[in-house]
C-alpha cells in the first residue's frame, strides 16, 4: 500500500510538459511573432517561445521524471523516499534474521496492530501541520478506552452509545486543550504535557482498585475492532473488492481531473503517467490483498483505518477547511489577513486530534478486549509521533500528508513486530524506536535545511 501516497499526494509533480514555461514566456514578449514559431497545424500547441532559463521546465518522457526527481531530492523535497527506503531496509534485515517475518501471518499482524497507533498518528498529522505538538494523545486514548468500559460494562450503557460518548469526550478534551492554546496563549507543548499527566491520572482514578475492566468482545465495537473480526467475514473476494475499489476510484478520479484540466486549458497529467500511477497502486493494493487473504483476511480495524485515511486526505486537500489548516501552518499572519479564523482552526485541529486519540483508544480496547492501567501509556505517544514524522510530515508545520500516518506506522509496526519475533525485550525495543524517531526528525530537519538552501524553505 506504500505506493498510495505517491498517487494521491497533493504536491506530486504536475506534468507541466514545458507548458508553463512557454505560456509564461508568451506573455513576456511584446512582439511575440519575432521570437516564437507556432506550429501552424496544431492550434493547441504552445508556441516555442524564448524560454527564460530560470523557469522550471520538465522534459518529456522518462528522462524528464528522472531529472525532476533529482532536482527535488537535491532541493530537500524528499517526500516519501526516506520511508520507502527505510521500510525496504527494515524488512530485509528482519527477514534475514527470522524468515517468518515476511510470512503472510506476520504481515497480517502488522496490518492489524498498526491501525490503533495509526489512528493517533492521523490526529497528530493535523497538529503537526500547524507546527504544534499534542503530547496528550496517548493518555486520551487510554482514558477513552476506560470511559468506554465504565459506560458499557459498569453502567450497562449500549456499547455503541458508549463509543460515541467516549469519542465525544476525546473531542471535548482536545477542544479544551486547543482553547488554552489558541485563546489563552499557553504553548501547546505545555498544555498537552499537562493533559498527558492529567488525563492519565483521571483514567487511573476511574479504574480505581480493580485496575482492569474486561469488556465482552462477542459483539459491539470492541468485537468489530478485535483481532478476530474481518472484512466481509473473511470472504476471499472482500480484500480484492477493496483493492479493486481503490484502483477504480483512483483511475476515475485521475481521468476526471485530466478531462477537466484539458477543458480548462491548464497543464494536465498525460494518460501514460496516470496509467503508471494507477498501475503502481493496483500492484500494491492487489499484492496486499493477496497476502492478507493468504493469512486470514482484511481485519475490520485496518479497513476503518484506511477509510479514515482516505476521508481525512480528502478533507485536508480538497476542502476549504484543509486549506485553512495548511495556511495556518504556513504563516499565521498570512492566514489571519486572509480572513481565516486562526483560533477556530487551532481549536478544531486539537479537537480532531483528541477525537482520533479517542478512536485510537477504542482500537486498543479492541486489541485487548479490556481497559487496563497501562492503556495508552508506555511508548504509545512516542510511536504515534514517530509514525507521523517518519512518514514525512514535518515537525515545523505546513508540510505533510495524512498518508504519512500509514507509511510511518508500517515502519514502526514492522520494527515492533520484528523485535517481538526476535524476542528482544522492551529495553531494546525502546532504544531502537527512540533511535528511529531521532533519525526521522534528523531527516526532517536536514531536508528542511537543504530546502532553505535551495530556496524552498
Amino acid at each position, binding site marked *: 500500500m506504500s505506493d498510495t501516497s505517491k498517487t494521491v499526494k497533493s504536491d506530486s509533480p*504536475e506534468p*507541466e510538459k514545458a507548458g*508553463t*514555461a512557454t*505560456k*509564461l514566456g*508568451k*506573455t*513576456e514578449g511584446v512582439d511575440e511573432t519575432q521570437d516564437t514559431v507556432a506550429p501552424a497545424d496544431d492550434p493547441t500547441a504552445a508556441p516555442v517561445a524564448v524560454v*527564460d532559463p*530560470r*523557469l*522550471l521546465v520538465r522534459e518529456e518522457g522518462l528522462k524528464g521524471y528522472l531529472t525532476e526527481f533529482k532536482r527535488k531530492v537535491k532541493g530537500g523535497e524528499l517526500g516519501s523516499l526516506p520511508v520507502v527506503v527505510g521500510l525496504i531496509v527494515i524488512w530485509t534485515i528482519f527477514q534475514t534474521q527470522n524468515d517468518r517475518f515476511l510470512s503472510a501471518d506476520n504481515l497480517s499482524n502488522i496490518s492489524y496492530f498498526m491501525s490503533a497507533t495509526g489512528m493517533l498518528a492521523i490526529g497528530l498529522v493535523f497538529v503537526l501541520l500547524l507546527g504544534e505538538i499534542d503530547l496528550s494523545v496517548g493518555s486520551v486514548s487510554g482514558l477513552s478506552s476506560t470511559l468506554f468500559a465504565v459506560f458499557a460494562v459498569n453502567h450497562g450503557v449500549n456499547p455503541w452509545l458508549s463509543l460515541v460518548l467516549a469519542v465525544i469526550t476525546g473531542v471535548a478534551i482536545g477542544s479544551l486543550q486547543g482553547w488554552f492554546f489558541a485563546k489563552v496563549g499557553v504553548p501547546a507543548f505545555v498544555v498537552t504535557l499537562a493533559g498527558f499527566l492529567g488525563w492519565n491520572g483521571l483514567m487511573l482514578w476511574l479504574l480505581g482498585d480493580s485496575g482492569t475492566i474486561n469488556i465482552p468482545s462477542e459483539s459491539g465495537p470492541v468485537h468489530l475492532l478485535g483481532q478476530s473480526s474481518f472484512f466481509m467475514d473473511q470472504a476471499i473476494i472482500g480484500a480484492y473488492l477493496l483493492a479493486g475499489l481503490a484502483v477504480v476510484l483512483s483511475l476515475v478520479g485521475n481521468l476526471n*481531473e485530466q478531462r*477537466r*484540466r484539458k477543458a*480548462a*486549458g*491548464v497543464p494536465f497529467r498525460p494518460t501514460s503517467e496516470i496509467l503508471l500511477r494507477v498501475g503502481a497502486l493496483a500492484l500494491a493494493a492487489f499484492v496486499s490483498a493477496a497476502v492478507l487473504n493468504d493469512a486470514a483476511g482484511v481485519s475490520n480495524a485496518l479497513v476503518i483505518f484506511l477509510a479514515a485515511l482516505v476521508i481525512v486526505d480528502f478533507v485536508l*486537500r*480538497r*476542502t*476549504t477547511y484543509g*486549506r485553512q489548516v*495548511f*495556511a495556518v*501552518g*504556513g*504563516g499565521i*499572519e*498570512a*492566514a489571519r*489577513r*486572509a*480572513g*481565516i479564523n486562526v483560533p477556530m482552526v487551532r481549536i478544531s485541529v486539537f479537537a480532531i486530534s483528541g477525537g482520533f486519540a479517542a478512536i485510537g483508544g477504542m482500537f486498543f480496547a479492541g486489541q485487548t478486549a479490556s481497559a487496563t492501567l497501562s492503556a495508552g501509556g508506555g511508548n504509545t505517544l512516542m510511536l504515534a509521533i514517530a509514525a507521523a514524522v517518519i512518514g514525512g510530515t514535518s515537525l515545523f*508545520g*505546513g*508540510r505533510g500528508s495524512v498518508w504519512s500516518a500509514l507509511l510511518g506506522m508500517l515502519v514502526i509496526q514492522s520494527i515492533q513486530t520484528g523485535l517481538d519475533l526476535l524476542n528482544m525485550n522492551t529495553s531494546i525495543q525502546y532504544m531502537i524506536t527512540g533511535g528511529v524517531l531521532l533519525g526521522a526528525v534528523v531527516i526532517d530537519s536536514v531536508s528542511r535545511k537543504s*530546502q532553505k538552501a*535551495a*530556496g*524552498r*524553505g
Partner: protein
Amino acid sequence: MVHVSATPVLALRGVSKRFGAVQALTDVDLEVHAGEVVALVGDNGAGKSTLVKTIAGVHPIDEGVIEWEGKPVSITKPHDAQGLGVATVYQDLALCDNLDVVGNLYLGRELLHRGVIDEVTMEKNARELLSTLSIRIPSVRIPIASLSGGQRQVVAIARALIGEPKVVILDEPTAALGVEQTAQVLDLVERLRERNLGVILISHNMADVKAVADTVAVLRLGKNNGSFPVKDTSHEEIIAAITGATDNAVTRRAERRTAEAAQ
C-alpha cells in the same frame, strides 16, 4: 489625470485614531477616486500605516467618517473592508510559504465546485490574471518559498486583485526591491490604474511617487499636511511638507503678518 468619477470611491473625513495615550491620527481627510493613484507619504511615525489599517479594518476609527462611493460606512474588521472592495497588500506581504501560487492567490476565498476546492478553475483564472498583469513566475504550482522577493511582491499584488476590488492599498511595495523589480511593480501599479482602480500607494521613495502617482497626500505627526497634484508640485515642496520645513518660526511669523495685514 482626468478623474473618472466626481464622487470619490473612498473618502475619509475627519478621521481620528488613538492608541492609549498616543494620538496616532488627528482629523485626517483623504480622497481616492477611481483610476487615481494617491501616494501617501510622510515620515516614520506620521501615521501612514495606521491610516491604511483603519481603511483595511485592522484598527477601527475612533472619530470621523469613512465614505464609500459617497455613502458613510462602518469598517470595524478586515472582513468589512474586503466586502466593500478594499484590498490591502502589506509590507510583509503575508503569503503562506508552504502553499503554491494558486493557493495563495485564492487563500480565504477558494472557489468551490460541488463543495470541493476547484483547483482547475482556480489555476486557470490565476494563469489568466498573471498573464494580463504580465507577471512572470516559474510556475503557478510551486510554493511561494521558492520565489524571489520581487516575484512575491507581484504575487501579493495579484492576490489583492482576485476579489475584484475597487481600491487597492499598497504598503511600501518597492521598499525591498531591486531596480528592475521596482520598475515591474511600478508598471503593475499603472496597470491597476488602467483597470480603473483607486490605488493608495505608501512610499518613502520620491522617485516612485513622482513616477506613478497622480496625487500626493502628505501626513505629518498624524495630521494632514497638504495634498498636491504630482504634476504641478516639485520634489522639494513635497519634501518640505513631509519634514515640516514650511512650519517654523519664520513661516509662522510671516503668516501672522499677513493675517494682521488683512485685518
